């Protein structure tokens, strides 16, 4: 029986997408993240940039790509706020790296698993955000557990809609 190495297995399961998808999906996520709260009376119960980060990190099964994607999405998200630039960047960098690392070991075609990974990484991202603000920067930032939980649930539910749509755009051999 032929035994495949880890890197070979990763290459076999690695998905690829058109270049346009790599450009448009993050941009759409950033724009919707900034625009949709206006229609929802200011409530932000989802994190679409994190969703995109996790999706591509899982699909590509590459921690470096997940790291880069998370860093760029987080930095852009920070730039739209009036807070320090890099807090979201670090949180999503870690999330992207972990998603890319986990993607090697799990079945990325399973929706339930991907939703659970998204849920956990959303919570982790919220924790990292507050820890950086309070510990690293020494600034006032209140931890709001319920809101973070709601955001993680909302992001997971949004993943149910967006992941199948993005799956359709992948290039099949």
């Amino acid at each position: 029986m032929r035994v495949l190495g880890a890197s070979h297995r990763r290459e076999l399961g690695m998905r690829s997408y058109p270049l346009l998808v790599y450009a448009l999906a993050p941009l759409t996520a950033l724009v919707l993240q900034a625009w949709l709260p206006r229609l929802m009376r200011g409530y932000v119960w989802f994190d679409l940039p994190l969703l995109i980060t996790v999706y591509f990190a899982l699909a590509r099964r590459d921690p470096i790509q997940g790291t880069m994607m998370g860093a760029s999405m987080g930095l852009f998200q920070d730039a739209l706020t009036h807070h320090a630039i890099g807090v979201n960047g670090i949180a999503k960098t870690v999330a992207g790296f972990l998603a890319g690392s986990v993607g090697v070991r799990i079945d990325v075609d399973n929706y339930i698993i991907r939703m659970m990974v998204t849920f956990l990484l959303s919570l982790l991202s919220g924790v990292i955000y507050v820890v950086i603000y309070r510990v690293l920067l020494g600034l006032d930032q209140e931890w709001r557990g319920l809101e973070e939980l709601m955001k993680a649930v909302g992001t997971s539910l949004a993943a149910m809609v967006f992941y199948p749509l993005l799956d359709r755009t992948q290039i099949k051999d």
Partner: protein
Amino acid sequence: MESFFTRYRNLLVLLAVLLAQIIGLAVQVRRTDSGRNTLDPLDPTGVRLIRLWADAVVTPPEQIFHAAKLGAVSLWKNYLDLRSVREQNQDLQKTIDRLRLEQASLLEDARQGERLQALLDFQQRYIYKTLAAQAIGTSGTDSSRVFYLDKGKAEGLDRDMAVITPDGIVGKVREVFPHSAQVLAINDPTSGAGVILETTRIRGILRGDAAGRPQIVGILADQRIQPGEKVLTAGGDLVFPRGLPVGEVVRVMPDPDRDSFIDVMVKPAAHLDRLDEVLVITSTEPRFSAEQQQDMAASEALKGPEVAAIKEQQKASQIMAEHLPGLSDPNAPAPAPASTPASGKALPGQDKATPPEPPAPKLLHPLRPDRFTPGAKPQPSQSEESSPPAHPGRNPKP
């Protein structure tokens, strides 16, 4: 060594990216002299390049989304309107006949409304210069209560301009981009607006809490503050003009950090979570038309003779007061008659410029004089009889 980098390539990339961002954070956050970390830039006039890039990337699609949403809503409404247009046409014809009769009576009301509208327009033009703008996006996170406007530097916006609605204040412009602007809402924890309670006249600073609820902080406990009291801008923060509505007091609760201080929760007058159109106060200087400026100049010119007339009147009053008779002090030493020349000539050593003393008024003698009567001798008493007066020189002379 090569195998180390190959083996831990992922981890090294992660660490490098994290390190770069941490260094970036360290550059942004500064520590003040009081040991408190802050994000305030040293140069408040500049905009960070990354914010400019993010705005340039996100704002145009947001504007397209906003325009598309308005177009879709308009299209849908038009479709719904067209569905029953025939039935409505017949009904409308009947309505038109009825409305023609009402038109005559409404015409007078319309004229009155036009006059009131003109008055209102004048008032609005007179007080402040404002610019209407539309809210097109948010920060995307609930920890940063900022939103974006579709007007920017090209339209005349600048930092620290007040953003209001007809209902009340909304926030202030924080960053200005070429064709958009970032507004910090009053319910953000980092915002601050000087406010005053309408009836109790207690001043405080309005800012948001972590959940985005505005509250007035830094107020000493006062029993007079009750829910329902109106909150207005105090005008001391150099952003919001004085007297604009802010909201009303909802709840008063003790400050958890400081004894004898309270936090006053405020319900904002403006709908901060449903902002569409806002007004940006671009100038707090009263604007005057050319005719008004001419009137003001003429008024200033008229003030000169008026002031001179008032001074002349005051001088005449002073002269009259000097010459009018008044009560003289009976205890004062009487002037020596010999030293007062009847001819008005001054004695040697006396200032020639000193005007002569006015003649003392003649006092009528009371029917029953008592000890308080000017010029009357004090009533003798036992103690006074036994002891000589302490100040004989101050006794009134007969």
